[in-house]
């Protein structure tokens, strides 16, 4: 089996990371948590947008909904955090199903879908910022994490689960359906693939994972406000990271998220105010010269090396 090695390596890596808190400094633990968060976000974004070709510019909506579901459940309804996490999964999932039933079912064109999502995130932000019952623009302060490394393990778990899910989908019959949709939606429909069902399922799956990430992050920070939860850069970052690694692949978003979250971290300690600008420039450069990201660059390099090697042999 050709694909066996990467799976074994990934499992070993996850196992190694699981022991991280024992031998890493607190700084590195928190840095890794950020990395896991972005791996989860970029991977989830890729589940829908990368695998179906419908770019969503407002997936941060589900992050915010997850974060707020948790915060409202624990700080206003006084529910235990576990229930808060469960709500942080269910609320974004249900809302995604609702949005999907309207937009995906209507076969709205790609560009319109992207902008409607962007708008939903923005409108939700302005509504949340004005509703006093959920803290308006001051935000909420849910109780913090009780045990020290819980956030680390949960975020690692989500990141691993998203990646495993993407791998499972890619190697299933369902994944073939998705690739057919990506290549030619009309043709896919003609050969009997339930295109709406495929897209809807991936949309909800991506929202569920992002929602859970959002819930865990708000628990971990024990603070959430509308401008942070529904920040435009959340939607943007997951797109940039998935794209930097490579759209529609399993490894791409992981690689992209690891590299870019480290870049983000480095920038935010030296020039925080330039970070979104640099990411903006980066996405433009990428799409102009290397739309397939690291994975494409890697394959291009392999392509250049091969004929040279053959020439040397002859």
């Amino acid at each position, binding site marked *: 089996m050709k694909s066996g090695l990467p799976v074994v390596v990934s499992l070993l890596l996850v196992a190694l990371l699981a022991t991280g808190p024992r031998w890493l400094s607190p700084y590195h633990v928190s840095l890794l948590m950020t990395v896991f968060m972005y791996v989860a976000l970029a991977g989830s974004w890729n589940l829908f947008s990368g695998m179906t*070709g419908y*770019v969503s*510019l407002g997936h941060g909506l589900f992050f915010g909904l997850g974060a707020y579901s948790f915060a409202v459940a624990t700080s206003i309804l006084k529910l235990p955090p576990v229930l808060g996490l469960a709500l942080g999964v269910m609320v974004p999932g249900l809302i995604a199903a609702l949005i999907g039933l*309207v*937009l995906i*079912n*209507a*076969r*709205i*064109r*790609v*560009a*319109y879908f*992207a*902008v*409607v999502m*962007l*708008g*939903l995130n*923005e*409108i939700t932000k*302005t*509504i949340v*910022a*004005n*509703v006093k019952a959920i803290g308006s623009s001051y935000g909420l302060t849910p109780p913090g994490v009780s045990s020290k490394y819980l956030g680390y393990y949960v975020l690692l778990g989500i990141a691993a689960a998203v990646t495993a899910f993407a791998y499972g989908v890619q190697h299933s019959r369902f994944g073939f359906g998705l690739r057919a949709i990506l290549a030619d*939606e*009309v043709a896919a429909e003609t050969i009997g693939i339930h295109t709406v069902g495929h897209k809807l399922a991936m949309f909800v799956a991506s929202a569920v994972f992002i929602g859970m990430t959002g819930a865990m992050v708000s628990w971990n920070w024990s603070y959430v406000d509308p401008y942070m939860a529904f920040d*435009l*850069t959340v939607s*943007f970052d997951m*797109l940039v990271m998935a*794209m930097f690694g490579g759209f529609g692949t399993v490894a791409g978003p992981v690689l992209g998220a690891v590299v870019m979250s480290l870049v983000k971290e480095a920038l935010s300690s030296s020039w925080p*105010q*330039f970070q*979104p*600008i640099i*990411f*903006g*420039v*980066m*996405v*433009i450069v990428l*799409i*102009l010269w290397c*739309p397939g990201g690291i994975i494409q660059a890697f394959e291009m390099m392999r392509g250049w090396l091969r004929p040279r090697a053959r020439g040397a042999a002859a």
Partner: protein
Amino acid sequence: MSATTFVQLLLFGVVWGGLYALIALGLNLIFGVMRILNIAHGELLMLGAYLAFWLFTLWKVSPLLSMPVAAVAMCVLGLIIQKLLIDPLAARSRTPAGFENATLIVFFGVLLILQNVALLLWTADYRSLSYLSEPVRFGDISVAANRLVVLSVAVVLSALMFVLMQRTMLGKAIRAVSQDRDTAKLMGIDVKRIGMIGFGLGSAIAGAAGALASTIYVITPTVGLLFTIKAFTIMVVGGLGNQFGIFIAGLALGIMESFASFVIGAEFKDATGYVLLIGFILWRARSSQAFAEVK
């Protein structure tokens, strides 16, 4: 609700609606000739608004005079973006869907760059200028003079756009390209040039609308996106390429928002248009322009 309040709200709504319609006309023009949904459209408006603000604050230049300056500046910026980003993308993209997706992502990047550059240059402070803010009275109804100025300029500019599109050869060419690029090319229209003109003109309108908006609204670096979303709503509801429909939809959205903010509170004002959009999508699914192309 008394009759006076009713008329007052209606008037407020019409003022905003006229401005929204103008912005949407620019967005629609760009979408027509370039097949680009410019989500950074509102950022050009924001820059136009800042330009008017600074010219007024530093040198007391009337926003009405700043308006053409903002229009020219944004036209130039639009053309630079077009030359630097859109042309190479168009040359590289193999499918129309690929191009549409790529431009969306590029403009998301442009949006963030412009927002954050504005934030660096001018901070997140709320800026506003007071220009002709003394009220004009018509019987019981009073309205700030600047709102009347905004309404009349927006109506005049929209009417000029209408004449340009419907009565001139250039307008005819723009409409032809919007309807069918390939056939337009066969008819001897320089599609690329029309694309440049359309993009420049659309950007110029955004700049002018920004200068207008600066007289009646607070300016922040993040003000643009809400305008883009509203313009998008109007474009979809009014009908792609349908100038008259867009103008009416713009007025309708303005009036709706005005009454909504009175009845259910100003904080939900921005959401009302979105309810309209989603309702429209549900209603017109599979039959309207919005859904003409699956992918």
